[in-house]
């Protein structure tokens, strides 16, 4: 619209808009809580979201996978030993059709051994179904990781919280202990503990949690120290709040983000240590399967049956990648100042 046209407009067409001065302060967007805000930021991180979906799928598979194909992970059928993978449907494409090496020649082992069943991921030297064992192993590995991480969080938060909150002599003594403990390499203590304990699920969890909580306790202590002296705590204390209330209502919610971030990095470490210990023969004992023992077993027969090694290797790698990416994403979302 040109200027002349504008001038020709009758004045009646105009209406005065009065701006209510109080509405200038109005917040038009809904106010978001810390967690809603973090979720908005996390949602933008494609890698973290994809990892979450993958992780959920893996957890679902770990739960239902062992029951999918009707084989039992501990049932030994020696006649069916050392079979390569054979998957219905895909076998027509020329892969996973049961072709394996026998005496240096490629033959269909299922036809030679006259096996009618399908073993999706093949079988091991004792004729156990590897598909079932793989998901059982994933289940065990995840269980170890989650329990170890939970123990780390509980001990770490309690220790760090008490040390940081009460300060003074308590803090001094507790920190001297930590300073000595932190010098002991995790690897050494884990191996020593496993040497003296009966090998098994509990032993691994105890060994991993024995030093795992230290990192968490230091972070929690530093955070508590940071918030303890702030005005809102002082205000609460002035109003007569008890220690319990200050810790539970004021301090913990503030350091929740950092606890979650740290836990997300504890879990892959625990998965790694479990697999590592099982690989050097200190982990779970047969017939129990974990990703580590499966990789160890698969490594031994790598030459003839590469798939035996490949499947658990892929699952553990994907698990670790997913946890690390989610951890990265959460760190960026929960603590935008601490981007790494």
């Amino acid at each position, binding site marked *: 619209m040109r200027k002349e046209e504008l001038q020709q407009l009758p004045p009646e067409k105009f209406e005065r808009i009065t701006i209510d001065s109080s509405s200038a302060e109005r917040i038009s967007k809904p106010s978001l809580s810390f967690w809603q805000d973090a979720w908005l930021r996390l949602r933008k991180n494609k890698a973290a979201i994809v990892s979450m979906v993958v992780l959920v799928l893996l957890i679902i598979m770990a739960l239902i996978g062992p029951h999918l194909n009707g084989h039992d992970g501990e049932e030994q059928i020696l006649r069916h030993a050392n079979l390569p993978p054979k998957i219905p449907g895909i076998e027509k494409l020329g892969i996973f059709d049961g072709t394996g090496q026998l005496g240096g020649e490629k033959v269909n082992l299922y036809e030679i051994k006259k096996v009618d069943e399908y073993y999706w991921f093949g079988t091991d030297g004792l004729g156990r179904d590897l598909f079932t064992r793989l998901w059982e192993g994933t289940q065990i590995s995840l269980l170890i990781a989650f329990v170890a991480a939970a123990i780390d969080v509980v001990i770490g938060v309690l220790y760090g919280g008490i040390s940081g909150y009460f300060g003074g002599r308590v803090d001094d003594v507790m920190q001297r202990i930590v300073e000595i403990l932190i010098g002991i390499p*995790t690897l*050494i203590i884990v191996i*020593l503990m496993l040497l*003296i304990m009966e090998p098994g699920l509990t032993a691994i969890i105890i060994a991993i949690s024995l030093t795992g909580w230290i990192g968490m306790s230091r972070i929690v202590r530093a955070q508590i120290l940071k918030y303890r002296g702030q005005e809102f705590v002082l205000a609460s204390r002035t109003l007569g709040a008890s220690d319990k209330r200050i810790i539970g209502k004021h301090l913990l919610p503030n350091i929740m983000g950092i606890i979650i971030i740290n836990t997300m990095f504890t879990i892959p470490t625990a998965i790694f240590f479990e697999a590592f210990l099982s690989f050097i023969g200190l982990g779970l004992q047969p017939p129990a399967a974990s990703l580590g023992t499966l*990789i160890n077993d698969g490594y031994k027969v790598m030459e003839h049956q590469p798939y035996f090694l490949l499947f658990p290797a892929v699952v553990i790698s994907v698990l670790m990648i997913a946890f690390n990416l989610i951890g990265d994403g959460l760190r960026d979302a929960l603590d935008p100042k601490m981007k790494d």
Partner: protein
Amino acid sequence: MAENPYTLFLLKGNKVKVCKCFHFEKKLIIQFDINQTHVLWRCNVVKYIGKRLVYMFLTMFLIATATFFLMQTLPGSPIASYNKLNETQRAIVEKKYGIDKPKPVQYAIYMKNLAKGDLGTSFVFKGKSVNDLLASRVKPSFILGAQAMVFGTIIGILLGMLAALKQNTIWDYGSTFFAILGVSIPSFVFASLLQYWVASQWHLLPVGLWNDGWKSSILPSIALAMGPLALSARFIRTEMIEVLSSDYITLAKAKGANGFEIAFKHALRNALIPLVTVLGPVAAGIVTGSLVVEQIFAIPGIGEQFVSSIMTNDFATIMGTTLFFSALLIFIIFIVDLLYGIIDPRIRLSGGKG
């Protein structure tokens, strides 16, 4: 109450300010003392080193004691075919290895020898001292560790630089993804896959053992290097991005320095400093990795020795190797902390308090 003075380093802008603070009549007095920066710094460092040495000693003592008593509770006997021996033979063998005496005496003897640097005699390798055993195996482990460290860090730095300089391009995403892979995939998985494809399927490099000169060290070094590579790539990327947005980079660009000069001469040097902090975890990762990687590639190193002595219940060797690893890691972390303080004086040396 003025007896409690301690030094604080205050950070203001990018300048370090040194001040002394102490309590006086329940008030915190802060005294700025800029001229004496150096003196105060030095006296703090000596105190800090002293304190750290005490802690290192305590930690080692604790580890040695714990190792000794944990070994006593191990199931099984270190002496092979123990059950086949008769009373006299047992007595002779036990006397030879000094395990006939009561536990406290054994402990005292063990600690005394340890102070002299003697780790004892192996139970499995007849009459060989653990010191000799470790000495004969330290070379391959050291070569692998050093190669992995150097190779991993250099490639990691280059990858991290590439990612930072070409931020949010395919190069950045590629190298970030690669770094995530390196952090996530356990070294033994990577090592066995490398062995399967490169050595066993394509016959490019030896499958294992230590008899083919430098060639046999390539694959295990690569497997060990993945951790340091990924860590330093991620670290350098973050640091570089921060450094690249600072004023002196703009100045360098303004005065007409070319891209190569800016990247290597101005940005990298400043981004490198914080990398020192991750060297500690990196070294721990390499030691952990060496246990499995040496086993996979059948390298006659200390890691492989450790795993096999666990399998054969060789108490003396397990204890010796444990102490060796602990001392190594504690020493590396100490050096790293010191280096960090020296390189970047902004770090408060009150140390270890998080």
